[in-house]
């Protein structure tokens, strides 16, 4: 059996801790207790696995060990005695609570946990932090670094959110069919925001992978929800091009300048096959439509070969279900590829997006192509001052596409 180091156990932690925490919250109804017990179980695993090697079912091992730790702790506490008798009632399938067969896969409660973490009664910041901490297995320090706040600030945010869940009794269950559309929206938004945070944050690039992992879990646990599939496809297709967005010298590469050979074909194939399944299902929603747009881009070896009329048609549909100025901006760009920069600029100038950085970058590019250089320069400067990454800022300061 291979010996294990700390990094290998850390890997298992990322993969398995969400499942274990979810199972313990189900058993004990207490997030703090679940978190602490799972943490302790991994500390025990670090020693035991280094000595004996990886068990056949590491997740089951962790869950069983954590359960036993939690029961030990409750036995020591007066209030715990009460809770323990309630737990025994709740888990009639085993005589001794906390002793499931550790070689069998544990029941997957992660879906309940993610709906609790993303309950609309919690702020979006709290939803993201809880999801990363409890389902993603990130430490408070890592969550803090991802959102550029100090560790104590993040610890306070997490503690407050957990206190609210407990005090206000935010339920631990998958919403019923009629509630699902409203309740699924924040869940998908949280996963999407974790991905975009990974794109812009140099501190925690692992967030993109984490978002995709969460989207995969959701897609496995909710195979009948077309928007869940749409989100996964969108993330896979975006991820397929992420490496090629940055040029070897660290500057930004536009879609048309990217080398399609650097795109990840496996991710594209997987994303496109999900998009095709969505199309057959024909229940379009914002994530599926954005995924479809990305699927069309992934088909074209060059920007000139892109099927722009199909992209405009998809944006028309997207604008119908998600009538936001950001969607309208992207639609205008696609129209510009067919009808030219003047037509696009006329549409773009209509939009109220002064605080949205891509709005200024788009205007700058269109003005440049129309030869209105001084107006273009002003727009480039405005866009550069708002750029989220250094690569993007440098690109815009040099005058965008015209500098190449």
């Amino acid at each position, binding site marked *: 059996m291979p010996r294990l180091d700390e990094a290998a156990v850390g890997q298992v932690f990322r993969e398995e801790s969400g499942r274990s925490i979810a199972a313990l919250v189900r058993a004990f109804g207490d997030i703090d207790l679940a978190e602490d017990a799972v943490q302790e179980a991994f500390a025990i695993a670090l020693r035991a696995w280094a000595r004996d090697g990886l068990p056949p079912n590491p997740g089951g091992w962790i869950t069983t060990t954590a359960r036993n730790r939690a029961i030990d702790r409750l036995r020591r506490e007066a*209030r715990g005695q009460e809770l323990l008798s309630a737990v025994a009632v709740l888990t009639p399938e085993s005589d001794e609570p906390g002793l499931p067969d550790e070689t069998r896969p544990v029941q997957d409660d992660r879906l309940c946990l993610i709906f609790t973490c993303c*309950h609309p*009664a919690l702020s979006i910041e709290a939803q993201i932090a809880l999801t990363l901490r409890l389902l993603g297995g990130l430490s408070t320090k890592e969550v803090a670094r991802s959102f550029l706040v100090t560790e104590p600030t993040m610890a306070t945010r997490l503690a407050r959110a957990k206190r609210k869940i407990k*005090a*206000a*009794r*935010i*339920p631990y269950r998958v919403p019923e069919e009629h*509630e699902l559309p409203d309740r699924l929206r924040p869940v998908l938004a949280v996963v999407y925001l974790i991905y975009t945070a990974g794109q812009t944050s140099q501190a925690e690039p692992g967030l993109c992978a984490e978002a995709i992992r969460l989207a995969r879990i959701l897609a496995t646990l909710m195979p009948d929800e077309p928007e869940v599939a749409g989100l996964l496809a969108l993330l896979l297709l975006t991820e397929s091009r992420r490496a090629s967005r940055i040029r070897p010298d660290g500057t930004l590469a536009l879609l048309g300048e990217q080398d399609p050979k650097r795109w990840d074909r496996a991710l594209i194939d997987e994303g496109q096959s999900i998009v095709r399944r969505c199309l057959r299902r024909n229940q379009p929603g914002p994530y599926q439509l954005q995924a479809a747009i990305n699927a069309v881009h992934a088909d074209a070896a060059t920007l000139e070969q892109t099927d722009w009329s199909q992209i405009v048609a998809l944006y028309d549909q997207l604008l119908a279900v998600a009538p936001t100025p950001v969607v309208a901006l992207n639609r205008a760009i696609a129209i510009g590829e067919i009808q030219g920069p003047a037509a696009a600029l006329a549409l773009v100038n209509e939009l109220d997006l002064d605080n949205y950085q891509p709005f200024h970058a788009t205007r700058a590019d269109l003005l440049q192509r129309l030869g209105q250089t001084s107006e273009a320069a002003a727009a480039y400067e405005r866009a550069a001052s708002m750029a989220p990454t250094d690569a993007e800022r440098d690109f815009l300061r040099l005058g965008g596409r015209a500098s190449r």
Partner: protein
Amino acid sequence: MTQYLLSVHSVEGEARDPMSKEEMRQFMERVGVLEEEMKSAGAWLFGGALHEADTATVVRVSDGEVLTTDGPFAEAKEHLGGFYIIEANDLDAALAWASKTTAAVSKPIEVRPFRHVSEA
């Protein structure tokens, strides 16, 4: 079961369009239907609308002496206008009652859980 406070707040000095007789009748009817529903579902514990904040009296102890002052807490701009105390299984159930309440009274409703005696 958890107990929740569903409260509505009014901002001091906020101009309010006076209700016509007919509007008042409809308002009372909506509230009556809601309260009946709360009672028959076993959620209702107590509730009511309060008089204006300027009918309030504040009592405090200062240097061992009880002082009585006219009016609400001076520093508050928002005042409790009315409330329900309900019992519900979880926050989702409480929020469902809050949705019905806000639909009936056309004002935002704040939902807060009561502290359990054992949680003190």
